[in-house]
């Protein structure tokens, strides 16, 4: 008989909160209300313990020893790769490259695929709502290859203006790089439509999934994107971990990125040959405990299940949206019907820094500022917003306290 699976992610918010030790603390004398989940999520015990277990039980370098511990560690590391593969429905483990995060993954593609294929006059298509991490790497490669950057405009609700696509995608379009979900607005973008259009024009598509991966099921096979990137720390996993998914035939033709150990097959001073995928792109000793813990984070998400998570998150999004609408002078930026639980907003006549400071005094953690999307705020002609971003462990009671804290702060600042 098979043993009952261990409960690591209970379907009860109070019990679930018990899995996140960090949540139970006071900040400035009030119970912490953590609403900065889009920046990074907190970590459940199951993930934290996977790191402790690694260091107390089987820490060893991977892929190179014959000894017992090296085998255990290598096994756990490669199992995590397989979990990622299943989680995003890639076709083989060798399409999963571990990186230090989304930023690292995008830079990898820009510096290898981008640099080796782009020519003067070629076009890279981004959108107004990209994170700086999905702008700057492309500017750097555009600078060195002579390629040009074009930008998908948005509508006032914070959605792509799809009517512009047909003029923006043309025969010079080589790379399209856009986010799946906007970190600043919460919009879930219709990436499938864009991917199909880009492919008809012969372009390759990279999807920045940093904000999607914890909120919506991702199926790279269905999307048919060429690259998909995300960070472990935004999905209950550790910092310093990330994934680049790439279609195998593209990864095969791309030159290596960083040189070093792990990524080679043979080295001599005359001629070095490179390792096979995925190791070709993983130079040096990787973040072993991080990758193993990322695997644990995937198990955690899978046990929660998308259906339950999405139901909770939809409730939170609705409640937060209604709450903000009920306060006079508050304006929400990003009003698409398709959103993850993120609300970006401003209170009339009040600087976000002031409001954020007074919320912090009341134990509430929100993000203020430009959220690394300055071109987006230039488009809206503001300098930034306050952003409250929710996760499965937030509850409606917290939204009630958030409202009281906001009212208090606004009345002080008015």
């Amino acid at each position, binding site marked *: 008989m098979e043993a009952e699976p261990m409960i690591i992610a209970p379907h009860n918010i109070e019990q679930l909160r018990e899995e996140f030790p960090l949540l139970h603390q006071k900040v*400035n004398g009030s119970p912490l209300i953590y609403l900065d989940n889009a920046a990074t999520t907190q970590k459940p015990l199951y993930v934290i313990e996977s790191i402790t277990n690694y260091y107390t039980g089987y820490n060893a370098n991977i892929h190179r020893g014959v000894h017992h511990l090296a085998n255990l560690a290598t096994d756990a590391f490669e199992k995590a790769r397989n979990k990622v593969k299943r989680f995003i429905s890639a076709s083989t483990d060798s399409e999963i490259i571990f990186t230090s995060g989304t930023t690292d993954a995008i830079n990898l593609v820009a510096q290898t695929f981008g640099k080796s294929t782009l020519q003067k006059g070629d076009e890279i298509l981004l959108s107004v709502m990209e994170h700086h991490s999905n702008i700057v790497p492309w500017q750097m490669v555009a600078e060195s290859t002579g390629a040009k950057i074009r930008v998908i405009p948005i509508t006032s609700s914070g959605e792509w203006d799809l009517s512009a696509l047909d003029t923006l995608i043309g025969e010079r379009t080589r790379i399209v790089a856009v986010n799946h979900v906007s970190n600043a607005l919460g919009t879930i973008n219709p990436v499938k439509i864009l991917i199909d259009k880009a492919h008809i024009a012969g372009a390759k598509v990279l999807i920045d999934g940093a904000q999607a991966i914890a909120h919506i099921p991702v199926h790279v096979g269905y999307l048919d994107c060429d690259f998909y990137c995300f960070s472990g720390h935004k999905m209950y996993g550790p910092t310093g971990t990330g994934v680049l998914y790439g279609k195998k035939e593209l990864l095969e033709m791309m030159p290596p990125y960083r040189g070093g150990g792990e990524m080679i097959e043979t080295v001599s001073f005359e001629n070095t040959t490179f390792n096979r995928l995925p190791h070709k792109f993983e130079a040096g000793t990787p973040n072993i405990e991080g990758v193993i813990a990322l695997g644990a984070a995937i198990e955690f998400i899978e046990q929660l299940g998308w259906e339950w998570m999405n139901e909770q998150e939809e409730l939170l999004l609705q409640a937060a949206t209604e709450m903000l609408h009920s306060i006079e002078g508050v304006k929400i930026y990003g009003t698409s019907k398709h959103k993850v639980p993120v609300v970006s907003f401003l209170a009339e006549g009040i*600087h976000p*820094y*002031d409001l954020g400071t*007074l919320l912090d005094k009341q134990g509430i953690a929100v993000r203020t500022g430009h959220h690394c999307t300055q071109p987006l705020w230039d488009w809206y002609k503001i300098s930034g917003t306050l952003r409250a971003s929710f996760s499965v462990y937030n509850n409606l009671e917290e939204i009630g306290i958030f409202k009281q804290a906001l009212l208090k702060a606004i009345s*002080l*600042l008015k």
Partner: protein
Amino acid sequence: MKMGIEEKQQEVIDEFGVFSDWMQKYEYIIELGKELPLIDEKYKTDDHLIRGCQSRVWLNAAMDESGVILFTADSDAIITKGLIALVIRVLSGEKPTDIVGADLHFVKDIGLQEHLSPTRSNGLASMIKQMKIYALAMGRLPA
């Protein structure tokens, strides 16, 4: 007799001593921020801008005939502006050498040191640095 930097700091510390919670403290800072027309509009240019990532601060310094420096400043965030008002009250009207050597311990003493941490990126810490740089430069000018 005119108060020096140390006396002015002590005065601010005494004023804050009566507040029993953060609300009262911030109410007062916000009041200070609202009250002061801090800088002439003509100085609100990029030349006078100190970039904190989140709130912007403009600073101007001028030396009067008696050899003391008069600071004016402004910010787009009201809490930053209130804190600026306090710093200006302490440093403005002082001699360059006194400004350069000043230890602004009052910020910590009134429990607002978090606003000087670089992660707040509100421009206050950079403003104080800039004030000292002005003082250093102006102290070298022939009076």
